[in-house]
């Protein structure tokens, strides 16, 4: 092996497993050796994790045993062979910083969760807000509506952006909103317009999360929904329409998605894995000790 720490991050999400292998100097100057994503699709999670991990290792041409540290993130119980676990906010923050060094906040939207994270220039989480137990601002909502409208996920963003007339969705609840959608279809509204309505409704909720978390400056949109440019466009649009009180201007936000955005968690985990490995080593503990310790 050449110089540096080769480490892996595994992001076990509720809809997909994402893996990244990096080479870095204790987390600094990381270079992505490979990434892999597999949707779970009703398969056994453990199997998908293993398969995605093997795929990523093969692509990076590394043997799993040569990795100095494997960090899992997302679902704690999904990866039984990880050296240690890091939590989603920590890894998304760090991952986002890798491909967007200016970012000082992260908006991570996955299938069943959404969180807004404020961080410093090293990716340390300073504040956050998240949704819980309600699907009204998450990817699953978009998926359901898309399925209802017969639109493949990949087309959702394009259609929404092309829309010219928006239709507001009034229900807070993702289920009751479907009824709104039925109404819209009946009034002959176009698929794109409806999707945009849904995007706007979600975007409104996400923006409130960002504000509540105290985000300021560049915001990296991460998670699966970062791939949905329709949503990102709506977020920007709402941002432009926000009304500030004259005396108290709201912090300026600059929302950006990146092609690597959906992989932010895995990237962050891989980088921090190397950092943690080094940290423990310097404290005179080996990584295998970390396995025992952090499992206990």
């Amino acid at each position, binding site marked *: 092996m050449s110089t540096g720490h080769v480490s892996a991050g595994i992001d076990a999400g509720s809809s997909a497993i994402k893996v990244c292998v990096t080479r870095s100097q204790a987390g600094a100057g990381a270079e992505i050796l490979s990434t892999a994503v597999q949707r779970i699709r009703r398969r056994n999670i453990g199997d998908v994790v293993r398969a995605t991990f093997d795929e990523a290792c093969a692509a990076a041409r590394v043997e799993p045993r040569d990795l100095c540290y494997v960090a899992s993130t997302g679902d*704690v119980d999904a990866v039984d062979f990880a050296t240690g*676990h*890091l*939590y*989603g*906010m*920590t890894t998304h923050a760090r991952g986002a910083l890798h491909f967007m060094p200016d970012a000082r906040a992260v908006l991570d939207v996955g299938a069943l*969760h959404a*969180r807004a994270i404020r961080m410093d220039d*090293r990716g*340390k*989480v*300073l504040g*956050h807000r*998240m949704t*819980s*137990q309600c699907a009204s601002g998450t990817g699953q909502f978009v998926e359901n509506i898309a399925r209802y409208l017969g639109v493949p996920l990949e087309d959702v963003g394009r259609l929404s952006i092309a829309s010219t007339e928006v239709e507001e969705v009034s229900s807070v609840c993702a289920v009751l909103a479907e009824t709104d959608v039925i109404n819209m279809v009946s009034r002959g509204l176009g698929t794109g317009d409806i999707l945009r309505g849904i995007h706007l409704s979600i975007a409104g909720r996400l923006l409130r999360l960002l504000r509540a978390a105290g985000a300021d400056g560049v915001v990296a949109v991460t998670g699966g929904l970062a791939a949905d440019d329709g949503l990102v466009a709506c977020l920007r649009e709402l941002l432009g329409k926000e009304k500030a009180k004259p005396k108290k201007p709201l912090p300026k936000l600059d929302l950006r998605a990146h092609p690597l955005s959906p992989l932010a968690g895995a990237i962050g985990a891989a980088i*921090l894995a190397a*950092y*943690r490995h080094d*940290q423990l080593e310097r404290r005179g503990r080996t990584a295998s000790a*970390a396995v025992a*310790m*952090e499992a*206990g």
Partner: protein
Amino acid sequence: MNDPAAAVLERARALVEDRKLSTVTRWKESHPGALAIGHMPVYVPRPLLEAIGCMPVALFGGGDAIDIIRGDSYFQSYICHIPRSTVELALLGDLSPIDGVLFPSICDVIRNLGGMWRMLFPEKYATYVDLPQSFEPDIGGAFYVLEMRRIARELAERGARPLDPARLGEAILRENERRAAIAELDALRREASWRCRASEAYLLVRAGGVLETREHTALIHEFLACARRRSGRPVDNVRVVLVGSFCEQPPLELVRALEKSGCEIIDDDFQLGMRMIDGPIEIAEGEDPLVALSRAYLEKGRDTASRYIGDLVKGAGLVRRVRESQADGVLFAAASFCDPALLDQPMLEAALTKAGVPHTSFKFSENMGQFSVIREQAGAFSDAVKLWGAEGAAP
């Protein structure tokens, strides 16, 4: 692995999970005619009850063990969970060994629950304990003494023994022994948290809700003896103080989930009533023990949310606790819709921020079963402290 404390912990767990209060039933069988008096959290003068021959029973709600059906019919969705499960337990008949219930003045929910109790169970004794918010001995103190006399009198009318100062003095001594034992337990957690984890202390202290004081003290001592024999070593965890002015208790699984996410809880206010008074209740020479009991409340009561702080500085006490226990940060864990805790929180947070103590907050309910969100949050908190070391603790 042979855990020397396994047996005593198992006993504590059985006591905590004993919904049907079999220890209380047994106690009543061996004390014919005596009353078992339940009380809601947080604080009631338990020694007073013992002194008049009653068994005080702490009612900590139904936890996650029961499905709430009828209990829900009395409470709107925006009210915390403990009153629902308490009503449910009563309607299921699980509280039948209880002859009466005291509702201390912690918040409007408990207060009104007292009124509901009278309407739902007119045959049982129920009263509100109006703890004083004036801390001058001859105003609030005098009122509290009268309040305690009233309760003693009303219970005597229902078969309790008349209040006798000597017996009250003894009960207070027993209570002091218990407090000393709990203090020892807390000290062990602070100094060697791998010998006594928060989830264990939670069980041990809570078990006291259905035990006579002396038995409870013995239980804790037994555990302490075992725990000191435990092997083990420090874990790479973050030290936190967990606050929330609990009345509704978090499910044990939540405490475990927090531990699993890398947070070592070295101080908390679970079952706050058992720790409400700092230090022993002192009876001055020739003093009426009832006055001593009242005085202890006025002077040594913790500055928790249900007490008016008067001229004290909000949050100063919490900062002191963090420093004393050398904690890295504070977790606020309030029951959803818990007014006292949630109204206090911004003030406490401000104090912590000022003192440079990192903190994070979340809400729970006693019957929650999904901890993923909380785990993420506590995990991110512990990650930050871990990865960025001491600096993580002082932003």
